[in-house]
């Protein structure tokens, strides 16, 4: 029997970016908050310090900061006619499993998603007509607007120390920034990072071709910085060990050195590590949750933590898994297209070319997570006419480097032998002379891409694994071909000695190799309980004292990395919860 603990105001499941933000905001507001985190505490001082953190084998190859698939994983398949099999080790995506979550080992690219996402169906239907959107593409409006979210984007950008250049402040288009972005109320908190050669060369090529390059905004502090909460950042050292590593300089905006230590100072906050939430409990009416059940993974002991409000902050796919395990909301059925939990799971696509320039020195070991120049001409540029290309969505293209270390990154021209003297000579010759241009593309929701519980495989707690059914559809293939063509044209205009051209991802999605930890959907926000699991405040339509925070709430996936809106929505939800506790009940 689980030991029943004393009730608290708020229990938070998972202490990464969203859990950290909510822990800080809600303790600030005087609530008693307990955070339950499956991982352990790691700190910059004792864990992410030099030299030990500079270990590609440990952090990149062996996934030291990431979820342990021996204990819990997913099953995967491309479509319903296949049998899903367990992802036996990590590959395509790498969710975190320490205090700070994936927010410790992310790269920090931080974008503001705009109404082009939030109003996707209305905008495309209005401009291109209803039939432009394929029948099986289940995109829908989000029920939120950019204007509502703007102050919260601003807040997250200041918390996480985003370096960048505004392209649009209150409607004024500014040189050097992204001219297509939606109006922001003010500049980024920090100037852009120092450009590296690869990003400069891409910038020149894109500008010469009439496009609009800008430095990619990212949570790598371009100089020492103190955020509005008083958290201190060092200046980024361009050490080249960003993605998948904790930052030794505290220059990467991460919850473990910002919001979490602030929450920890409050007597109203308690963190329980090594504690795995297996279930959110409901009351007899099924209209409210009563708290969570968790297992102490150090000894197997089970506890029940009652709470007036429960927040799922366990990372997008983990939140969906918990909803399914707890039986909250109706599971999505792709055949009848009814139900909501598991619906609209999305991922991202992409294409990349490697360009070799004899005689140049790219120093690929010298970069920040966000050392990248980008263009948005094929993404949030609404003037880009999709009609001739027949796809919904877009892609952002960038040139630069992010954490390319030698076990994983040794570019050679296609056709080079894989071993022996010729391989070695080519590896030595080209390593310094290569750069990449890559695109990250949106994935529109499709009725056949979804999450549910696996009928066969179980996790270490004896609970069903979550099953992921996902593949790229024709819409993404078309966009991928457009992106690959654009990349190859741009690359050729740069006159490389040789290049490995970009190709569209048209093969089935695979669970290896790494693609991105940008999983979205599964418990989406919306305006109608029949077609969404959450309202615009990420409040469960079914149980009004449950909020499900993270990219699980996104009805589709854009070309951008997710954490800008994930962080903004966490702040937005915090404000909603502050209103909620005064008068509990549905906020919509």
């Amino acid at each position: 029997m689980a030991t029943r603990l004393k009730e608290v105001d708020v229990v938070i499941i998972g202490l990464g970016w969203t859990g950290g933000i909510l822990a800080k905001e809600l303790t600030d507001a005087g609530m008693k908050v307990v955070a339950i985190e499956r991982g352990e505490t790691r700190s910059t001082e004792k864990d992410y310090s030099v030299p030990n953190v500079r270990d590609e084998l440990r952090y990149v190859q062996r996934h030291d900061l990431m979820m342990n698939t021996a204990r819990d994983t997913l099953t995967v398949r491309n479509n319903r006619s296949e049998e899903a099999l367990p992802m036996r080790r990590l590959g395509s995506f790498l969710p975190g499993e320490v205090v700070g979550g994936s927010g410790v080992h992310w790269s920090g690219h931080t974008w503001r998603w705009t109404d082009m996402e939030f109003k996707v169906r209305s905008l495309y239907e209005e401009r291109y007509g209803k039939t432009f959107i394929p029948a099986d593409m289940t995109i829908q409006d989000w029920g939120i607007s950019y204007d509502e979210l703007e102050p919260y984007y601003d807040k997250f950008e200041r918390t996480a120390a985003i370096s960048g250049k505004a392209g649009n402040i209150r409607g004024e288009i500014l040189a050097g920034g992204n001219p297509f972005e939606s109006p922001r109320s003010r500049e980024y908190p920090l100037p852009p990072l120092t450009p590296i050669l690869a990003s400069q060369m891409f910038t020149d090529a894109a500008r010469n071709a009439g496009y609009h390059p800008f430095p990619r905004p990212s949570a790598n502090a371009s100089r020492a910085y103190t955020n509005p909460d008083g958290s201190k950042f060092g200046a980024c050292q361009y050490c080249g060990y960003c993605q998948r590593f904790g930052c030794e300089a505290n220059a990467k905006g991460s919850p473990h050195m910002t919001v979490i230590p602030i929450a920890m100072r409050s007597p109203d906050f308690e963190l329980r590590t090594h504690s795995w939430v297996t279930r959110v409990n409901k009351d007899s009416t099924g209209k409210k949750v009563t708290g969570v059940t968790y297992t102490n993974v150090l000894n197997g002991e089970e506890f029940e933590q009652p709470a007036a409000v429960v927040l799922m902050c366990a990372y997008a796919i983990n939140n969906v898994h918990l909803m399914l395990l707890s039986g909250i909301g109706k599971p999505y059925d792709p055949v009848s297209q009814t139900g909501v939990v598991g619906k609209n799971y999305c991922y991202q696509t992409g294409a990349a070319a490697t360009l070799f320039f004899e005689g140049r020195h790219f120093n690929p070991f010298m970069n920040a997570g966000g050392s990248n120049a980008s263009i948005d001409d094929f993404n949030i540029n609404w003037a880009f006419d999709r009609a001739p290309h027949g796809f919904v969505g877009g892609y952002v293209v960038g040139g630069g480097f992010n954490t390319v270390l030698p076990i994983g990154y040794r570019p050679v021209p296609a056709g080079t032998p894989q071993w022996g003297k010729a391989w070695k000579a080519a590896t030595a010759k080209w390593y310094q002379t290569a750069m990449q241009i890559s695109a990250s593309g949106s994935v529109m929701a499709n009725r056949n891409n979804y999450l549910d519980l696996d009928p066969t495989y179980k996790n270490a707690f004896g609970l069903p694994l979550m099953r992921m059914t996902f593949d790229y559809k024709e819409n993404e293939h078309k966009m991928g071909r457009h992106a690959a063509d654009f990349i190859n044209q741009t690359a050729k205009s740069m006159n490389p000695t040789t290049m490995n051209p970009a190709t569209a991802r048209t093969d089935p999605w695979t669970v290896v190799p790494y693609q991105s930890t940008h999983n979205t959907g599964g418990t989406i926000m919306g305006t109608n309980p029949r077609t969404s699991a959450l309202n615009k405040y990420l409040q469960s339509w079914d149980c009004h004292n449950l909020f499900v925070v993270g990219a699980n709430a996104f009805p589709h996936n854009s070309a951008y990395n997710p954490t800008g809106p994930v962080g903004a929505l966490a702040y937005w939800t915090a404000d909603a919860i502050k209103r909620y506790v005064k008068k509990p009940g549905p906020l919509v």
Partner: protein
Amino acid sequence: MSDQPMKDHDVGRRDFLRKAVAGGVAATTTALAPPALAQQPAAAAPAQEAPTAAYEFLNLDEQAFVEALVNHMIPADGLTPKGTDLGINVYIDRALGGAWGKGDRLYMQGPWKIGQPGQGYQLPLTPAQLYRAGIEATNAYCVRTYKKTFDKIDATQREDVLIGLSTGKIDLGALPTRTFWTTVYQTVMEGMFADPIYGGNRGKAGWKLIGFPGALAVNRENVEKYRDKPFPTDPLGIADMS
């Protein structure tokens, strides 16, 4: 550094072991302990030669296979010493004998199905078990084809075997060839480019090959200073900075 003496030395050592085992002289592990062995034909090796590998996981056949493999894939030339001089065999042995080799973080519950390539690794084997079975199957193929195990065939034959493995043309029976090969390839690259604390990349020769500075921490000033210029690197590893 010369190639031959080390090779002779290795072969000599292994032949000694084989005979010893066959003759029942050394039935216990103590008698096989590496320090004692190192004294055997070691006189032939030049003084500055890398120390004889002491293995914790690989058995004699596997040692011979892995040494031949890494020296074929990473031959000595003006760019780097050969694979065993880089300690790649030592790296592989330790990786297989350690947590990763024993299946740390690997979901190991059945049922076991072959599945689609896109579903990733699906064998009921730890990396160490896969390596062991893969070496055995590759050696069986070599004996069938050349009447000798992989370590005894010549360089052209070895090249053919590696091409056969990497293209999946060699059939390893129950084992999916590509799965074995990608694991082998991955570990060789790790042994060449991981930090030297793991036993490979000896002398940081892998990093020197490409000009990777290693555990270097501070590049803030260097981004502008060395933009499009060669960066002078004498790489540092974790041990150099500890």
